[in-house]
């Protein structure tokens, strides 16, 4: 299973959807996705728009795959419930969890 480096962060879509409420469809769409570059996507045999299972040492999430210009080996997940399921709560004495740079596995959702 190839490992990717996970980066989380703000996006315009997530920011714009936030005021519409966490339970709004816009917010769900804006946050429950994962971005990957086309090379990696093809190597994994995945399609844009497909749902994938994303897993770290701390948890997993089911997200919708999107294609984006990113360095190879890196995936991006917007801030939100999806990202939070993936990052750990250990802050290593800083108060800040390691929200970027985690190793993740991405696999197609079967069934």
């Amino acid at each position, binding site marked *: 299973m190839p490992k990717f*480096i996970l*980066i*989380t*962060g*703000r*996006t*315009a879509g997530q*920011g*714009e*959807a*936030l*005021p*519409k*409420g*966490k*339970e709004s469809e816009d917010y769900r769409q804006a946050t429950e996705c994962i971005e990957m570059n086309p090379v990696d996507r093809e190597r994994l045999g995945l399609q844009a728009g497909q749902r994938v299972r994303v897993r770290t040492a*701390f*948890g997993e999430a089911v997200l919708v795959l999107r294609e984006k*210009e*990113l*360095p190879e080996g*890196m995936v*991006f997940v917007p*801030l*939100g*419930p999806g990202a*939070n*399921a993936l*990052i*750990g*709560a*250990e*802050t*290593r*004495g*800083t*108060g*800040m*969890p*390691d*929200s*970027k*740079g985690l190793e993740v596995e991405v696999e197609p959702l079967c069934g």
Partner: protein
Amino acid sequence: MWIENVVCPFCGCLCDDIAVEVEDNRIKSVKRACSNGRSVFLHAPTEARRPVVDGKEVDWPDAIDAAARILMKSASPLIYGLSSTASEAQRKAIALADLLGASIDSTSSICHGPTSIGIQSQGEPTCTLGEVKHRSDLVIFWGCNPVEAHMRHFARYSVLARGKFTPQGRKDRTVVVVDVRPTLTARNADIFLQLRPGSDYEVLITLRAMLKGARLDVAEVGGVSVAQLADLVERMKRCRFGVVFFGMGVTQTGGKHWSIAELVALAAELNAHTRFNVMPMRGHGNVAGADCTLTWQTGYPFAVNFARGYPQYNPGEFTAVDLLARQEVDAALIIASDPMAHLPRQAAEHLNRIPTIVLDPEMNLTARVARVVLPTAIYGISAVGTAYRMDNIPLPLKKVVNSPQPTDEQVLDWIIERVKT
């Protein structure tokens, strides 16, 4: 009716030139705001909502009573959030924490908490955004993405803005972006340095060493060639007025506060050659205010605990993620934040186990699990108050529509009175 010079409370830019059209106590349209800001104004809830206790709608006195009982019964309460409410409410929240002997933390701890720690070891050469607008000829965005997160930052303050000594705006500036991926911000850069994820610290410390003239044994650092770094150092030394804006790309990766300390040290040392400043890109509209109010009332910007009757400070100990993940709190009061949506799941789950009180204009994920939900007016839209911009400039928030809900400040006052009696 158009209301002019409205301050948008969405992000740390606090753009104060927004025009809002209001009719029948509803916001009809918004001028000059970015898409985020527009969304805030247009989706502001105005319908009346009653407090909820244990899933049942109740009257305010009963809800306040329930909240106060939870807090008084608690041996180790947490007050968390604060960054999307006015400083007046933040001050009340701190007063309540002091009264209770609670822990209090703002969302700073998961955005620029490491920045505060870094500043505490190194200081912070900084300036107001107007200084950047008027003087900057080298602007570096490091690990931040204003095009998506602070959409009018370029135009109002940093890149396109024309100032007294930067009459040509964009043409007068060199824009450098340092990030791990080609963000929309990076597309606007003159120079883009794409770092290997998690190597900000290495690159920063290398830049410092190069500025000092140290000889190094390496050819590349963090995926960037030493030649490129040398070029950046030269540009930094030669510019007239430089500034580094930095975001969570720096604060949330490995080095955390030590990366900030290096960034600050680099900027400070550049002042031997030219003028150089740094500024954190603060996210929430009044997260800077949370730092300010906590600091003037307790001495510390976040991660404060009053258990012993006086403030103690320790990130990693009194920060929300740690307190929740280690299950060290037995009640929580969440103000204008949604930790169920924003904290790591392991930490957020504890809010399910303990009685939680939520003050928020909206029904959010935390409110879903809360024992007591106290719906309040929304700051800067249906409540007045003060908010602090990312450069700590205080701005007055307007009330553009009336809300049937009380403000955070009022509700906290009620809780304080109830706890006192």
